[in-house]
Protein backbone atom coordinates (compact mmCIF):
# COMPACT_ATOMS: atom_id res chain seq x y z
CA UNK A 1 0.00 0.00 0.00
CA UNK A 2 2.66 2.43 0.99
CA UNK A 3 4.92 1.88 -2.01
CA UNK A 4 1.86 2.23 -4.20
CA UNK A 5 0.93 5.50 -2.61
CA UNK A 6 4.50 6.66 -3.09
CA UNK A 7 4.47 5.73 -6.74
CA UNK A 8 1.15 7.50 -7.21
CA UNK A 9 2.54 10.63 -5.64
CA UNK A 10 5.63 10.47 -7.85
CA UNK A 11 3.42 10.10 -10.90
CA UNK A 12 1.30 13.06 -9.90
CA UNK A 13 4.36 15.19 -9.25
CA UNK A 14 5.97 14.17 -12.51
CA UNK A 15 2.87 14.98 -14.49
CA UNK A 16 2.43 18.30 -12.70
CA UNK A 17 5.85 19.59 -13.66
CA UNK A 18 5.57 18.15 -17.14
CA UNK A 19 8.75 16.11 -16.84
CA UNK A 20 9.44 13.20 -19.19
CA UNK A 21 7.72 9.90 -18.50
CA UNK A 22 8.64 7.96 -15.39
CA UNK A 23 11.53 5.64 -16.16
CA UNK A 24 12.93 2.63 -14.38
CA UNK A 25 16.14 3.52 -12.61
CA UNK A 26 15.25 7.17 -12.29
CA UNK A 27 12.02 7.45 -10.41
CA UNK A 28 11.59 3.87 -9.28
CA UNK A 29 14.11 1.14 -8.62
CA UNK A 30 15.32 -0.88 -11.62
CA UNK A 31 15.83 -3.97 -9.47
CA UNK A 32 15.26 -5.12 -5.92
CA UNK A 33 17.33 -3.00 -3.56
CA UNK A 34 20.58 -4.53 -2.30
CA UNK A 35 20.30 -5.79 1.29
CA UNK A 36 20.04 -2.94 3.77
CA UNK A 37 19.82 -0.28 1.09
CA UNK A 38 17.03 1.87 -0.25
CA UNK A 39 16.44 3.55 -3.59
CA UNK A 40 16.91 7.28 -3.86
CA UNK A 41 15.26 8.42 -7.08
CA UNK A 42 16.86 10.91 -9.44
CA UNK A 43 16.24 14.47 -8.40
CA UNK A 44 18.15 17.60 -7.71
CA UNK A 45 20.04 19.32 -4.97
CA UNK A 46 19.92 23.00 -4.19
CA UNK A 47 23.20 23.90 -2.48
CA UNK A 48 22.74 26.24 0.45
CA UNK A 49 25.75 28.28 -0.64
CA UNK A 50 26.99 28.48 -4.16
CA UNK A 51 29.29 30.50 -6.33
CA UNK A 52 27.74 32.92 -8.77
CA UNK A 53 28.51 30.60 -11.67
CA UNK A 54 26.80 27.61 -10.17
CA UNK A 55 23.23 26.71 -11.09
CA UNK A 56 20.62 27.01 -8.43
CA UNK A 57 19.87 23.33 -8.58
CA UNK A 58 22.17 20.55 -9.66
CA UNK A 59 20.81 17.18 -10.83
CA UNK A 60 21.50 14.10 -8.74
CA UNK A 61 21.30 10.68 -10.39
CA UNK A 62 19.34 7.90 -8.73
CA UNK A 63 21.40 5.66 -6.43
CA UNK A 64 21.20 3.17 -3.58
CA UNK A 65 21.72 4.42 -0.05
CA UNK A 66 22.13 2.45 3.16
CA UNK A 67 18.90 2.53 5.15
CA UNK A 68 20.76 3.34 8.35
CA UNK A 69 24.26 4.35 9.47
CA UNK A 70 26.95 1.67 9.85
CA UNK A 71 26.92 0.14 13.35
CA UNK A 72 29.73 -0.64 15.78
CA UNK A 73 29.19 -4.37 15.22
CA UNK A 74 29.60 -3.95 11.46
CA UNK A 75 32.67 -1.80 11.84
CA UNK A 76 34.15 -4.33 14.26
CA UNK A 77 33.83 -7.01 11.58
CA UNK A 78 35.55 -4.68 9.15
CA UNK A 79 38.56 -3.99 11.36
CA UNK A 80 38.80 -7.69 12.14
CA UNK A 81 39.09 -8.43 8.43
CA UNK A 82 41.29 -5.39 7.72
CA UNK A 83 43.65 -5.06 10.70
CA UNK A 84 45.33 -1.95 9.31
CA UNK A 85 42.20 -0.02 10.33
CA UNK A 86 42.36 -1.16 13.95
CA UNK A 87 42.84 1.54 16.54
CA UNK A 88 46.42 0.63 17.41
CA UNK A 89 47.44 0.24 13.78
CA UNK A 90 45.83 3.06 11.86
CA UNK A 91 48.54 5.72 12.19
CA UNK A 92 47.98 9.43 12.74
CA UNK A 93 47.59 10.41 9.09
CA UNK A 94 44.56 8.18 8.62
CA UNK A 95 42.91 8.46 12.03
CA UNK A 96 43.67 10.86 14.87
CA UNK A 97 43.98 9.98 18.54
CA UNK A 98 40.22 9.94 19.02
CA UNK A 99 39.82 7.16 16.46
CA UNK A 100 37.51 4.52 17.99
CA UNK A 101 38.69 5.84 21.35
CA UNK A 102 35.48 4.76 23.06
CA UNK A 103 35.99 1.10 22.17
CA UNK A 104 37.42 -1.09 24.91
CA UNK A 105 40.14 -2.41 22.60
CA UNK A 106 41.17 -3.02 19.03
CA UNK A 107 38.63 -5.82 18.72
CA UNK A 108 36.44 -5.16 21.71
CA UNK A 109 33.57 -2.74 21.93
CA UNK A 110 33.16 -2.79 25.71
CA UNK A 111 30.04 -2.21 27.75
CA UNK A 112 29.75 1.51 26.95
CA UNK A 113 29.54 0.93 23.19
CA UNK A 114 26.38 -0.87 22.04
CA UNK A 115 26.89 -3.16 19.06
CA UNK A 116 23.79 -1.82 17.31
CA UNK A 117 24.60 1.88 17.82
CA UNK A 118 26.10 3.82 14.91
CA UNK A 119 29.88 3.69 14.82
CA UNK A 120 31.36 7.13 15.50
CA UNK A 121 34.91 8.43 16.01
CA UNK A 122 35.85 7.09 12.59
CA UNK A 123 37.94 9.04 10.12
CA UNK A 124 36.98 9.76 6.51
CA UNK A 125 39.75 7.42 5.41
CA UNK A 126 38.39 4.58 7.54
CA UNK A 127 34.79 5.20 6.52
CA UNK A 128 35.80 5.17 2.90
CA UNK A 129 37.83 1.98 3.29
CA UNK A 130 34.84 0.34 4.98
CA UNK A 131 32.59 1.34 2.10
CA UNK A 132 35.04 -0.06 -0.42
CA UNK A 133 35.33 -3.33 1.39
CA UNK A 134 31.55 -3.62 1.11
CA UNK A 135 31.63 -2.84 -2.62
CA UNK A 136 30.12 0.56 -1.88
CA UNK A 137 31.29 4.14 -1.54
CA UNK A 138 30.46 7.16 0.57
CA UNK A 139 27.61 9.31 -0.73
CA UNK A 140 28.52 12.71 -2.14
CA UNK A 141 27.30 15.87 -0.45
CA UNK A 142 24.70 16.29 -3.19
CA UNK A 143 23.49 12.71 -2.82
CA UNK A 144 23.31 12.89 0.93
CA UNK A 145 21.53 16.22 0.98
CA UNK A 146 19.15 15.04 -1.71
CA UNK A 147 18.16 11.99 0.35
CA UNK A 148 18.00 13.95 3.59
CA UNK A 149 15.79 16.69 2.17
CA UNK A 150 12.85 14.29 1.98
CA UNK A 151 10.25 14.40 4.70
CA UNK A 152 8.58 11.45 6.34
CA UNK A 153 5.59 11.37 4.01
CA UNK A 154 6.49 13.70 1.16
CA UNK A 155 9.59 14.24 -1.00
CA UNK A 156 10.11 17.73 0.42
CA UNK A 157 10.65 17.74 4.16
CA UNK A 158 10.86 21.51 4.41
CA UNK A 159 7.18 21.87 3.56
CA UNK A 160 6.11 19.11 5.90
CA UNK A 161 4.73 20.24 9.27
CA UNK A 162 6.96 19.24 12.14
CA UNK A 163 9.84 17.98 9.98
CA UNK A 164 12.24 20.90 10.39
CA UNK A 165 11.18 21.33 13.99
CA UNK A 166 12.22 17.78 14.77
CA UNK A 167 15.67 18.36 13.29
CA UNK A 168 16.08 21.59 15.23
CA UNK A 169 15.05 19.83 18.42
CA UNK A 170 17.74 17.21 17.77
CA UNK A 171 20.37 19.91 17.20
CA UNK A 172 19.39 21.40 20.52
CA UNK A 173 19.95 18.19 22.45
CA UNK A 174 23.35 16.97 23.61
CA UNK A 175 24.54 13.72 22.03
CA UNK A 176 23.37 10.92 24.30
CA UNK A 177 25.87 8.44 25.64
CA UNK A 178 25.66 5.65 24.77
CA UNK A 179 24.08 6.37 21.41
CA UNK A 180 20.77 4.67 20.65
CA UNK A 181 20.52 1.89 18.07
CA UNK A 182 20.98 2.80 14.40
CA UNK A 183 17.89 2.31 12.28
CA UNK A 184 15.36 2.86 15.04
CA UNK A 185 14.32 6.23 13.64
CA UNK A 186 11.26 6.75 11.51
CA UNK A 187 11.93 6.06 7.81
CA UNK A 188 11.78 9.08 5.54
CA UNK A 189 9.89 9.24 2.25
CA UNK A 190 12.66 7.28 0.50
CA UNK A 191 12.87 4.68 3.23
CA UNK A 192 16.13 5.94 4.75
CA UNK A 193 16.31 6.21 8.53
CA UNK A 194 18.28 8.41 10.90
CA UNK A 195 19.63 10.83 8.30
CA UNK A 196 18.65 13.36 10.93
CA UNK A 197 18.37 12.88 14.63
CA UNK A 198 21.12 10.38 15.44
CA UNK A 199 24.63 11.34 14.30
CA UNK A 200 26.28 13.52 11.65
CA UNK A 201 27.62 11.59 8.68
CA UNK A 202 30.75 11.72 6.54
CA UNK A 203 30.28 12.44 2.85
CA UNK A 204 32.84 11.58 0.22
CA UNK A 205 33.52 15.17 -0.82
CA UNK A 206 33.21 16.88 2.56
CA UNK A 207 36.34 18.88 1.69
CA UNK A 208 34.43 20.85 -0.92
CA UNK A 209 32.70 22.71 1.91
CA UNK A 210 34.50 26.03 2.13
CA UNK A 211 32.96 28.76 4.13
CA UNK A 212 36.04 30.92 4.34
CA UNK A 213 38.18 32.31 1.60
CA UNK A 214 40.27 29.32 0.64
CA UNK A 215 41.44 30.27 -2.80
CA UNK A 216 42.37 33.08 -5.14
CA UNK A 217 43.86 34.96 -2.30
CA UNK A 218 42.42 35.05 1.13
CA UNK A 219 39.30 36.80 0.03
CA UNK A 220 38.77 35.33 -3.42
CA UNK A 221 36.20 32.72 -2.61
CA UNK A 222 34.18 35.16 -0.62
CA UNK A 223 34.11 37.42 -3.63
CA UNK A 224 32.86 34.54 -5.72
CA UNK A 225 30.10 33.59 -3.37
CA UNK A 226 27.02 35.68 -3.40
CA UNK A 227 28.21 36.95 -0.11
CA UNK A 228 31.19 35.96 1.95
CA UNK A 229 30.53 33.03 4.14
CA UNK A 230 27.19 34.31 4.34
CA UNK A 231 23.63 34.21 5.01
CA UNK A 232 22.72 36.92 2.51
CA UNK A 233 23.73 34.73 -0.42
CA UNK A 234 22.22 31.58 0.93
CA UNK A 235 19.37 29.69 -0.66
CA UNK A 236 17.21 29.64 2.40
CA UNK A 237 17.95 31.72 5.45
CA UNK A 238 15.71 29.59 7.60
CA UNK A 239 17.48 26.35 6.83
CA UNK A 240 19.50 26.42 10.01
CA UNK A 241 20.31 22.67 9.97
CA UNK A 242 21.86 23.05 6.50
CA UNK A 243 24.11 25.84 7.82
CA UNK A 244 25.07 23.54 10.66
CA UNK A 245 26.00 20.74 8.28
CA UNK A 246 28.13 23.05 6.15
CA UNK A 247 29.84 24.38 9.24
CA UNK A 248 30.46 20.86 10.46
CA UNK A 249 31.85 19.62 7.14
CA UNK A 250 34.08 22.61 6.62
CA UNK A 251 35.59 22.12 10.07
CA UNK A 252 36.60 18.51 9.44
CA UNK A 253 39.88 17.04 8.28
CA UNK A 254 39.99 13.56 6.77
CA UNK A 255 41.82 12.02 9.74
CA UNK A 256 39.48 13.48 12.36
CA UNK A 257 37.51 11.08 14.51
CA UNK A 258 34.57 12.86 16.08
CA UNK A 259 32.24 11.55 18.82
CA UNK A 260 29.06 12.30 16.87
CA UNK A 261 30.15 11.74 13.27
CA UNK A 262 29.48 8.35 11.72
CA UNK A 263 28.67 7.36 8.15
CA UNK A 264 26.56 5.26 5.84
CA UNK A 265 27.37 3.93 2.38
CA UNK A 266 25.97 4.45 -1.08
CA UNK A 267 26.19 2.56 -4.32
CA UNK A 268 25.60 3.40 -7.96
CA UNK A 269 22.58 1.66 -9.50
CA UNK A 270 24.78 -0.29 -11.86
CA UNK A 271 28.39 0.02 -10.87
CA UNK A 272 30.56 -0.01 -13.99
CA UNK A 273 33.12 -2.80 -13.92
CA UNK A 274 35.98 -0.36 -14.23
CA UNK A 275 34.59 1.83 -11.46
CA UNK A 276 37.59 3.59 -10.00
CA UNK A 277 35.83 3.63 -6.64
CA UNK A 278 36.57 -0.08 -6.46
CA UNK A 279 40.24 0.43 -7.12
CA UNK A 280 40.79 0.12 -3.44
CA UNK A 281 43.94 2.17 -3.22
CA UNK A 282 43.97 3.06 0.44
CA UNK A 283 42.76 -0.34 1.51
CA UNK A 284 45.22 -2.20 -0.64
CA UNK A 285 48.25 -0.01 -0.30
CA UNK A 286 48.29 0.05 3.44
CA UNK A 287 49.32 -3.08 5.37
Amino acid at each position, binding site marked *: MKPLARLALILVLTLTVGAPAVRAGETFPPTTAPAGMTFIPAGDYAPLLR*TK*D*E*PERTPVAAYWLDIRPVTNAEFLEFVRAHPQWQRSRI*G*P*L*FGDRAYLADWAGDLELGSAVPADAPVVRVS*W*FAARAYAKSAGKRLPTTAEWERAASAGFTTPVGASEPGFSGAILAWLGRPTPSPLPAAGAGRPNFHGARDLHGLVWEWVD*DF*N*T*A*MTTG*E*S*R*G*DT*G*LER*NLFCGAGAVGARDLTDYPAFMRIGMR*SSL*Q*ANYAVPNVGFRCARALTPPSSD*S*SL*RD*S*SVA*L*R*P
Partner: protein
Amino acid sequence: MKLNLALALSLLVTAVSAIATDATTAPCPPPAAGAKPSCCSEEKVAAAQPLSDRSIYQLGATWINDAGQPATLVSLRGKPVVVAMFFAQCEYACPVLVQDMKRLLAALPEKVRGQAQLVLVTFDTERDTPAALRAFRERMALDERWTLLRGDNESVQELAMLLGVKFKQDARGQFAHSNLLTLMNAEGEIVHRHGGLNGDISEAAKVFALAAKK
Protein backbone atom coordinates in the same frame (compact mmCIF):
# COMPACT_ATOMS: atom_id res chain seq x y z
CA MET B 1 59.71 29.75 16.37
CA LYS B 2 60.37 27.73 19.50
CA LEU B 3 57.19 25.82 18.94
CA ASN B 4 58.08 24.97 15.39
CA LEU B 5 61.51 23.86 16.47
CA ALA B 6 59.92 21.54 18.99
CA LEU B 7 57.51 20.29 16.38
CA ALA B 8 60.27 19.57 13.92
CA LEU B 9 62.29 17.77 16.55
CA SER B 10 59.37 15.69 17.66
CA LEU B 11 58.66 14.74 14.07
CA LEU B 12 62.25 13.67 13.65
CA VAL B 13 62.01 11.56 16.78
CA THR B 14 58.86 10.03 15.40
CA ALA B 15 60.66 9.26 12.18
CA VAL B 16 63.41 7.46 14.03
CA SER B 17 61.08 5.44 16.18
CA ALA B 18 58.64 4.85 13.38
CA ILE B 19 56.89 1.55 13.34
CA ALA B 20 56.69 -0.52 10.23
CA THR B 21 53.71 0.43 8.16
CA ASP B 22 54.02 -0.05 4.49
CA ALA B 23 56.72 -1.49 2.35
CA THR B 24 55.44 0.20 -0.75
CA THR B 25 57.61 -0.89 -3.58
CA ALA B 26 57.45 2.05 -5.87
CA PRO B 27 58.31 1.33 -9.46
CA CYS B 28 61.33 3.34 -10.46
CA PRO B 29 60.17 6.07 -12.77
CA PRO B 30 62.16 6.09 -15.97
CA PRO B 31 64.31 9.18 -16.32
CA ALA B 32 62.32 11.79 -18.16
CA ALA B 33 63.54 14.41 -20.52
CA GLY B 34 63.77 17.71 -18.70
CA ALA B 35 62.91 16.08 -15.41
CA LYS B 36 65.16 15.26 -12.52
CA PRO B 37 67.88 12.65 -12.92
CA SER B 38 67.31 9.05 -11.96
CA CYS B 39 66.30 8.56 -8.38
CA CYS B 40 66.95 4.85 -8.29
CA SER B 41 70.09 4.58 -6.23
CA GLU B 42 68.61 6.65 -3.44
CA GLU B 43 65.34 4.89 -3.68
CA LYS B 44 66.90 1.51 -3.19
CA VAL B 45 68.53 2.68 0.01
CA ALA B 46 65.34 4.33 1.16
CA ALA B 47 63.13 1.38 0.33
CA ALA B 48 65.03 -0.73 2.82
CA GLN B 49 63.52 1.28 5.67
CA PRO B 50 59.78 1.04 6.22
CA LEU B 51 57.91 4.31 5.96
CA SER B 52 56.92 6.03 9.17
CA ASP B 53 53.24 6.19 10.02
CA ARG B 54 53.38 9.96 9.48
CA SER B 55 54.75 9.70 5.99
CA ILE B 56 52.67 11.06 3.15
CA TYR B 57 54.48 8.46 1.03
CA GLN B 58 52.11 5.84 2.46
CA LEU B 59 49.79 7.06 -0.26
CA GLY B 60 50.95 4.72 -2.96
CA ALA B 61 49.37 6.42 -5.95
CA THR B 62 51.10 6.47 -9.31
CA TRP B 63 51.11 9.78 -11.15
CA ILE B 64 52.09 10.94 -14.61
CA ASN B 65 54.66 13.72 -14.83
CA ASP B 66 54.89 16.46 -17.41
CA ALA B 67 57.17 14.30 -19.53
CA GLY B 68 54.35 11.80 -19.77
CA GLN B 69 56.19 9.29 -17.57
CA PRO B 70 54.82 7.42 -14.53
CA ALA B 71 56.05 8.89 -11.27
CA THR B 72 55.56 8.35 -7.56
CA LEU B 73 55.91 10.70 -4.62
CA VAL B 74 57.95 8.16 -2.68
CA SER B 75 60.67 8.41 -5.31
CA LEU B 76 61.44 11.81 -3.76
CA ARG B 77 62.27 10.10 -0.47
CA GLY B 78 65.58 11.21 0.92
CA LYS B 79 65.13 14.85 0.01
CA PRO B 80 63.15 17.68 1.57
CA VAL B 81 60.03 18.38 -0.47
CA VAL B 82 57.55 21.22 -0.86
CA VAL B 83 54.18 20.14 -2.25
CA ALA B 84 51.37 22.30 -3.51
CA MET B 85 48.19 21.47 -5.36
CA PHE B 86 47.23 23.69 -8.27
CA PHE B 87 45.79 23.70 -11.79
CA ALA B 88 47.44 25.09 -14.88
CA GLN B 89 44.56 27.28 -16.06
CA CYS B 90 44.39 29.01 -12.70
CA GLU B 91 44.31 32.72 -13.41
CA TYR B 92 45.44 34.18 -10.17
CA ALA B 93 46.28 32.08 -7.15
CA CYS B 94 48.43 29.33 -8.65
CA PRO B 95 51.03 31.58 -10.28
CA VAL B 96 51.29 33.39 -6.95
CA LEU B 97 51.58 30.05 -5.18
CA VAL B 98 54.48 29.14 -7.46
CA GLN B 99 56.11 32.51 -6.77
CA ASP B 100 55.74 31.80 -3.06
CA MET B 101 57.53 28.49 -3.57
CA LYS B 102 60.31 30.28 -5.42
CA ARG B 103 60.58 32.82 -2.61
CA LEU B 104 60.78 29.95 -0.12
CA LEU B 105 63.52 28.35 -2.18
CA ALA B 106 65.44 31.60 -2.30
CA ALA B 107 65.18 31.98 1.47
CA LEU B 108 66.82 28.60 2.13
CA PRO B 109 70.50 28.08 2.97
CA GLU B 110 72.37 27.21 -0.19
CA LYS B 111 72.94 23.57 0.69
CA VAL B 112 69.29 22.89 1.39
CA ARG B 113 68.26 24.85 -1.68
CA GLY B 114 70.21 22.45 -3.85
CA GLN B 115 68.49 19.41 -2.36
CA ALA B 116 64.98 20.75 -2.18
CA GLN B 117 62.36 19.25 -4.45
CA LEU B 118 59.25 21.16 -5.44
CA VAL B 119 56.15 19.27 -6.43
CA LEU B 120 53.01 20.61 -8.06
CA VAL B 121 50.04 18.26 -8.29
CA THR B 122 47.12 19.34 -10.41
CA PHE B 123 43.45 19.20 -9.44
CA ASP B 124 42.52 19.34 -13.10
CA THR B 125 42.62 15.68 -14.06
CA GLU B 126 40.94 16.41 -17.39
CA ARG B 127 42.66 19.42 -18.88
CA ASP B 128 46.11 19.21 -17.34
CA THR B 129 47.68 16.76 -19.73
CA PRO B 130 51.45 16.30 -19.67
CA ALA B 131 51.61 18.85 -22.50
CA ALA B 132 49.60 21.39 -20.51
CA LEU B 133 51.86 20.81 -17.51
CA ARG B 134 54.92 21.17 -19.71
CA ALA B 135 53.59 24.48 -20.98
CA PHE B 136 53.05 25.58 -17.37
CA ARG B 137 56.62 24.58 -16.56
CA GLU B 138 57.90 26.73 -19.40
CA ARG B 139 55.62 29.65 -18.65
CA MET B 140 56.68 29.70 -15.02
CA ALA B 141 60.34 28.89 -15.80
CA LEU B 142 60.57 25.88 -13.51
CA ASP B 143 63.87 24.04 -13.47
CA GLU B 144 64.64 20.36 -12.89
CA ARG B 145 64.00 20.59 -9.15
CA TRP B 146 60.30 20.92 -9.95
CA THR B 147 58.06 17.93 -10.51
CA LEU B 148 54.64 18.45 -12.11
CA LEU B 149 52.15 15.65 -11.65
CA ARG B 150 48.70 14.65 -12.70
CA GLY B 151 46.74 11.67 -11.40
CA ASP B 152 43.31 10.08 -11.37
CA ASN B 153 40.48 11.69 -9.44
CA GLU B 154 40.81 9.37 -6.52
CA SER B 155 44.53 9.90 -6.05
CA VAL B 156 44.03 13.65 -6.23
CA GLN B 157 41.27 13.50 -3.65
CA GLU B 158 43.27 11.29 -1.29
CA LEU B 159 46.35 13.48 -1.54
CA ALA B 160 44.21 16.57 -0.91
CA MET B 161 42.71 14.88 2.13
CA LEU B 162 46.14 13.94 3.50
CA LEU B 163 47.45 17.45 2.98
CA GLY B 164 44.27 19.10 4.25
CA VAL B 165 43.62 20.88 0.95
CA LYS B 166 40.03 21.80 0.19
CA PHE B 167 39.01 22.11 -3.42
CA LYS B 168 35.90 22.35 -5.49
CA GLN B 169 35.38 22.61 -9.23
CA ASP B 170 32.92 25.27 -10.29
CA ALA B 171 30.58 25.26 -13.27
CA ARG B 172 33.20 26.86 -15.54
CA GLY B 173 35.70 24.13 -14.70
CA GLN B 174 37.84 26.40 -12.54
CA PHE B 175 38.81 25.22 -9.08
CA ALA B 176 38.33 26.99 -5.81
CA HIS B 177 41.03 25.61 -3.54
CA SER B 178 43.14 26.13 -0.45
CA ASN B 179 46.39 27.92 -1.04
CA LEU B 180 48.65 25.69 0.92
CA LEU B 181 52.32 24.79 0.79
CA THR B 182 53.15 21.56 2.56
CA LEU B 183 56.76 21.13 3.65
CA MET B 184 57.98 17.59 4.17
CA ASN B 185 61.20 16.12 5.49
CA ALA B 186 63.21 13.40 3.77
CA GLU B 187 60.75 10.78 5.00
CA GLY B 188 57.70 12.52 3.60
CA GLU B 189 56.53 13.66 7.02
CA ILE B 190 54.86 17.04 7.17
CA VAL B 191 57.01 19.49 9.09
CA HIS B 192 55.19 22.70 8.27
CA ARG B 193 52.14 24.07 6.51
CA HIS B 194 52.14 27.49 4.99
CA GLY B 195 48.72 28.85 4.10
CA GLY B 196 47.66 31.89 2.13
CA LEU B 197 49.33 33.85 -0.62
CA ASN B 198 52.11 36.43 -0.61
CA GLY B 199 52.71 35.87 3.06
CA ASP B 200 55.90 35.93 5.11
CA ILE B 201 57.72 32.69 4.29
CA SER B 202 60.67 33.15 6.67
CA GLU B 203 59.14 30.87 9.28
CA ALA B 204 58.50 28.17 6.70
CA ALA B 205 62.06 28.50 5.40
CA LYS B 206 63.53 28.12 8.90
CA VAL B 207 61.54 24.98 9.71
CA PHE B 208 62.24 23.51 6.31
CA ALA B 209 65.98 24.12 6.53
CA LEU B 210 66.04 22.51 9.95
CA ALA B 211 64.08 19.48 8.76
CA ALA B 212 66.30 19.11 5.72
CA LYS B 213 69.42 18.92 7.89
CA LYS B 214 67.87 16.00 9.80
